[in-house]
């Protein structure tokens, strides 16, 4: 017989060890698709490593990739902490980008000290609105936010298309569906010469620190955790559960919106419908790898960004499909889930061996 027994509290060391092991396991498992694609395994790994750490440029590219992932990772982590399943970060990212473009391409003009906060505020507000909808549908009508926030992603991306062919279209774009460029004084400044790394990263890091403190040291953070652990008990203790959920929804959506702002005002300069290669969905992986800890999100985002940038470089050099990166990222999520299981439970074999149940 096989029995599953809880282990009791998870030690701090385990909490750190599990995601690290999970990430390594996922990377190791990549050998299977690599072999299937006929690539030499060790040179391929080496190429992935070089692709991230081989030059200043590649390293800053990784940091640039990590920036939106920190935002979407934080968005998922905070919402999941309250057991609010925000799977709509992809859509909220686009809403944020649209908010930034609506304000930052000439509607108003001013000095950078005014324009940059304004663009960020517009994007954050648009993102917040994007998650407030599903949260209200949940608290008012009991509609499952997983489904509504997911479906909203598809609606929003079509909406972006419509805006880019309509009011937000750049008349100078020769018919391409793209927005007008963000004004220079509304753009997030670059951090290094001739590199794409931009100050969105600083904002993301600040957001992570603030979220870490807010979650662990404030009453608001306590309410979030209480609602997430046991909503009924929290309600009994006098915590406004719906209020807390709506609040988290706004913050979570705003963070995902900032991912869009940072991409459009920091990196691309204008909005297109291929702004995000799925950062919203990867953010869920980042949050889970981080064990829903905001500071952990930063580390996990660096890891996921390294996989993306490294696998991209490897796939160019060796002709292996760059879908390998998605494969490793998804395997990391599954590994960390399974790792979490072994941290919480031990499996005991008793009596008749071989009798599976």
């Amino acid at each position, binding site marked *: 017989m096989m*029995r*599953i027994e809880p282990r009791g509290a998870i030690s701090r060391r385990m909490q750190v060890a599990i995601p690290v092991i999970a990430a390594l396991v996922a990377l190791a498992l990549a050998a299977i*698709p690599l072999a*299937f*694609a006929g690539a030499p395994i060790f040179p391929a790994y080496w190429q992935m490593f070089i692709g991230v750490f081989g030059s200043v440029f590649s390293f800053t590219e990784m940091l640039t990739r990590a920036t939106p992932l920190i935002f979407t990772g934080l968005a998922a982590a905070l919402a999941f902490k309250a057991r609010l*399943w925000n*799977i709509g970060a992809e859509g909220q990212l686009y809403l944020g980008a649209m908010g930034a473009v609506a304000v930052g391409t000439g509607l108003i003009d001013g000095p950078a000290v005014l324009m940059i906060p304004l663009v960020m505020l517009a994007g954050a507000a648009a993102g917040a609105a994007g998650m407030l909808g599903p949260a209200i*549908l949940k608290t008012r*009508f*009991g*509609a*499952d936010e*997983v*489904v*509504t926030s*997911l*479906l*909203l*992603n*598809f*609606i929003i991306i*079509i*909406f972006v*298309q*419509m805006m880019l*062919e*309509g009011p937000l279209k750049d008349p100078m774009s020769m018919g391409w569906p793209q927005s007008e460029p963000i004004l220079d004084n509304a753009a997030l400044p670059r951090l290094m010469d001739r590199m794409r790394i931009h100050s969105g990263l600083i904002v993301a890091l600040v957001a992570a620190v603030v979220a870490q403190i807010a979650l662990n040291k404030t009453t608001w953070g306590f309410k979030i955790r209480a609602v997430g652990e046991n909503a009924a008990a929290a309600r009994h203790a006098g915590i406004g559960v719906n209020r807390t959920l709506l609040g988290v929804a706004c913050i979570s959506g705003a963070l995902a919106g900032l991912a869009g702002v940072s991409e459009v005002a920091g990196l691309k300069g204008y909005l297109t419908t291929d702004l995000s290669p799925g950062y919203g*969905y990867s953010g*869920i*992986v980042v949050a*889970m790898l981080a064990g829903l800890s905001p500071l952990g999100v930063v580390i996990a985002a660096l890891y996921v960004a390294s996989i993306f940038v490294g696998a991209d470089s490897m796939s160019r050099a060796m*002709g*292996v*499909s760059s*879908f*390998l990166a*998605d*494969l490793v*990222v*998804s*395997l990391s*999520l*599954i590994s960390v*889930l*399974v790792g*979490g*299981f072994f941290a919480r439970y031990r499996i005991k074999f008793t009596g008749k061996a071989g009798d599976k*149940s």
Partner: protein
Amino acid sequence: MMDLLQIFLNESFWVASLRIATPLIFGVLGALLCERAGVLNLGIEGIFVVGAMVGWMTVYAGAPLWIGVLAAAGGGALFGLFHAILTVPLGLSQHVSGLGITLFATSSASFLYRTILPDVSSPPRIKAFQPMDVPFLSDIPFFGPVVFQQTAMTWLALIMVGVVWWVINRTPLGVAIQAVGDNPDAVNAQGLSVYKLRIGAVVAGSALMALGGAFLTMSAFDAFFFGMVNGRGWICIALVIFASWRPGKALLGALLFGMFDAFQVRLQTEAGAVIPSQIFLMAPYVLSIVALVFVARKAEYPRALLQPWFKGHR
């Protein structure tokens, strides 16, 4: 107004409705089977992609169409088994595991496709299922073409509605599946294995979902495109709730959805000049959300849905 009426009187509208509904029928039935046993399967979106890719690739490699259908079901079952192992014996979060399966299944299918066919600029085609032509029956005015000029996979979907209904409502196995989704302790007390029932239901349900994907590449189209599933899986998750976990209502929901989608396509050609086409493209997703909101309050979820069950724990 006359134009709108014309749409409904045209048999091509009803043919299209049933065709659009077909992958959703498979998907809703699959999701229903999993959820009736107490397991939410958010892997559905990825399992659709796997079904679409595996079915198509098998036929492209030279196998007959029906072998492709079987291969698709097998591929779906495999990812379903993975989801089942994570959520049933290991009792992991069904939400996160399901999303993980969707990411894993989608990237696996895309990676395989790209590795096997590295540089194809335009997707290669297969000879897909053709509309059936049943002697005499197809010639019945109106009803004939609508039902009897569909492809064999649409028929399979309609047959599966009956099969799933019969299994759930008329067999001891179905009673056990329902019980394991409502009260696993009672099932265990009866001496039945909660694990086996749940895993079995998730595997079978996932195989059905994959058939929905296979329909896309082997019946609706004749090629595989990245992003072709395009949220159909998630729509099925909404439709299951709309259908109150009943196969008959699932068919009805999928058909209503198909009718709406076929209608909006036709309306688009009528009113395309005035209303941006994107409004019509959004409509199916908006409709799913609206349907969900309407039924959410009175939805009677299987009582043990999302709840892991461990042997020997109380």
